[in-house]
């Protein structure tokens, strides 16, 4: 009886954390994507506008990353204790990059010289791009496996660096740029929107290429992955995922080509990320450190998970409500001339 409850709790927490990480990836994904796209919009007026589309919401978006990290610490402390030291350099790189990205939002408006503006634009670009790259590398490094001994990481501090983790790193950069372009398409009009839509094409192609490359490589990382994706009859159950990716890609291309409604490409990009997430879940389940530690082995005691779940069940819907409200207040297209009347 107790076992049944704790199994449910662990699964619930796994799903909740997956949800938090997904929300982080897509929300901060478009913020970071804007930073990645910044070099392609050299005009100050465009850059001001781009930053203003996310200025009121970026901090909330980044908070989901803290929930992801804090939630892992709370619900799966053993996983947190193994994964973070194993991925030490890319995690530190991500944190430092997020510092540059985050302060650029404020500092950019406070510098009084052209040189200062160039400096903080550069910080925004480099911070956003390196944070995205680090996050992609973290994903790849986790997926390819981590050496564990007892309850601790047992590898060296460069184990994370492989062609596969670099591939996932680049794929995530492309994916975030796609999200950023779709967000701009949604929030702007005129010339800048035209450019955004064009860039959504470019990075859409790059993202799908990245998804295909990672998907082809993944089954060969671990025998378990191969069995799950290409073994019989597993392939029957997982086949809908690639089929759905193909369908969404087609829809995204069609929407961009036919100048459909402005929110459609953004929503389809979110769906593409969701499918990638489902694919990841299929590969890793029921492990949290692939091949080494299952979610159940890493889980904190039922008393910890229950205590948090009570709060999460009440608070997460409230958080979603006021976050949605904040987005609603700042809805609609931004006019680049406002503020200059």
């Amino acid at each position, binding site marked *: 009886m107790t076992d049944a409850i704790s199994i449910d709790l662990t699964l619930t927490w796994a799903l909740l954390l997956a949800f938090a990480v997904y929300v982080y990836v897509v929300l901060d994904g478009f913020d970071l994507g804007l930073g990645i796209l910044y070099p392609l919009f050299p005009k100050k007026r465009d850059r001001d506008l781009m930053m203003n589309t996310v200025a009121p919401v970026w901090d909330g978006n980044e908070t989901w990353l*803290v929930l992801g*990290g804090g939630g892992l610490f709370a619900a799966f402390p053993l996983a947190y204790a193994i994964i973070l030291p194993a991925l030490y350099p890319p995690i530190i790189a991500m944190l430092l990059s997020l510092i540059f990205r985050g302060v650029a939002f404020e500092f950019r408006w*406070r510098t009084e010289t052209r040189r200062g503006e160039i400096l903080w634009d550069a910080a925004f670009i480099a911070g956003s791009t390196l944070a995205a790259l680090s996050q992609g590398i973290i994903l790849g490094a986790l997926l390819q496996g981590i050496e564990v001994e007892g309850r601790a990481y047992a590898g060296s501090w460069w184990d994370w660096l492989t062609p596969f983790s670099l591939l996932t790193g680049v794929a995530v950069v492309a994916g975030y740029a796609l999200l950023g372009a779709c967000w701009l398409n949604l929030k702007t009009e005129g010339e800048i929107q035209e450019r955004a839509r064009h860039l959504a094409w470019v990075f859409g192609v790059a993202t799908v290429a990245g998804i295909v490359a990672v998907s082809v490589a993944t089954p060969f990382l671990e025998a378990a992955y191969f069995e799950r994706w290409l073994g019989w009859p597993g392939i029957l159950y997982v086949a809908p995922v690639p089929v759905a990716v193909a369908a969404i890609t087609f829809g995204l291309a069609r929407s961009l080509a036919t100048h459909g409604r402005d929110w459609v490409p953004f929503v389809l990009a979110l769906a593409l990320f969701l499918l990638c997430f489902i694919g990841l879940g299929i590969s890793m389940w029921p492990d949290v450190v692939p091949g080494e530690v299952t979610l159940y082995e890493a889980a904190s005691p039922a008393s910890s998970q229950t205590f948090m779940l009570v709060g999460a069940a009440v608070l997460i819907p409230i958080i979603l409500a*006021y976050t949605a409200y904040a987005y609603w207040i700042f809805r609609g297209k931004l006019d680049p001339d406002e503020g200059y009347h």
Partner: protein
Amino acid sequence: MITITRTRGPLMDTFLGLDALVLARLQFAFTVAFHFIFPAFSIGLASYLAVLNAMFLFTKDEAYLRLFRFWVKIFAIAFAMGVVSGIVMSYQFGTNWSVFSDRTGPVLGPLMAYEVLTAFFLEAGFLGIMLFGRQKVGPGLHMFATAMVAVGTAISATWILSVNSWMHTPQGYGINDVGQFVPEDWWAIIFNPSFPYRLAHTLTAAYLTTAFIVGGVGAWHLLRGRGDNRGVRTMFSMAMWMIAVTAPLQIVLGHEHGLNTLEHQPVKIMAMEGHFESHDDGVPLVLFGWPDQEAGEMRYGLEIPRVGGLILEQGWNGSLPGLDTVAAEDEPPVALVFWTFRVMVGIGMLMLGVGLWGLWARWRARLYEARWLHRAALLMGPSGLVAVIAGWITTEAGRQPYVVYGAMRTAEAVSPIDAQAVGASLIAFVVIYFCVFGAGVLYILRLMSHAPEVGETGARGEPGPVRTAGVTPQQQIRRSHVGPDRRQET
């Protein structure tokens, strides 16, 4: 598998002669001290902004709106720096202290998760509305958003101080078969014995810190001959009231916190008070001295007989065991604890002095003319930040050699990572923090150096047309609507 396998080779045990444990401790101390500067300021400032906003709505006095807009720009910068340096903290438990994370995660993780769910989202969700949304949502909802940000900062402090206090006075837990601390009584964990004292002391410290910064900025403008600017006068007056109330309150709270520490962490008090020897008939107060931990004695000690016992409420003939009753491997670094404690208490006394001085000047109706008071307030402007950092060093170093007092040593807690990795990241943190946060502090000082004027702009060119709109356009500031009481202005 695509993984490139590497053998560990000769183990990289040290970096510049320091081992991974020392480096990880240095990194944590550096990043947490740097981080805490921002919340110490923004917790108080968020509440101050809520008060200013409410005062404006209540009195319709333009001076309050002007001050709100003046300080909200500074808040935006300080808050952003607090957020980005705070995310580092939430991951550093795992990267550098993985054994600690594994073992305490079941107890401390949920408290931190609650901090995220109840505080971080609240602050972040309403920050955008507070900074950019006044015209979009109207004054009522804008006030609500400002209040939510202030409440969020206080809730955040509450949870994280509960976590920290549990590490000082752990209770309500058991140990499972893999050595993890597992929760048995959440009420006992959250409301552990040192938590209420630490919470009250730290929150008051944040308010006091902010009051001194606001007062220092006001004093600077008064010294620059801007005494006829109502914004300047109002901020200086409000700050001096706040200091007069919180400085004495803080001394009382600090004293109570100290008595609580004596009960639960007596060794820390021995180090704070510099008692190497036990006393059984009257406990002296060591004012100053040079603690020599090796020799186990206080060199050049300046003592007042029996007063230490009175302060610690042990009585005239009271007794107190000293560090001679503690095994050497269980002693904290005495000199560090002893001296940082004196820095904090010394600043606290000076703060009390400024508070009394302000009351006296106000009583004599010379609050805006007393130049020596203004000079003192300016000099003391950043003193709160120094005091909070000193106080944190006292309490954290005083807990050593334990990370969870009496239950887990700091040396056991560190991650199994190469000293090289920690050393490299430590250097990166130091360089980047000084450059980035140095620039931020510079921008804050620059904003502070302009007096809050009529038609002060908000975070992004407020007042002006609706929406978040680009850089502060100068021509718009000049033409922007003017407060109702302009004729009172110079």
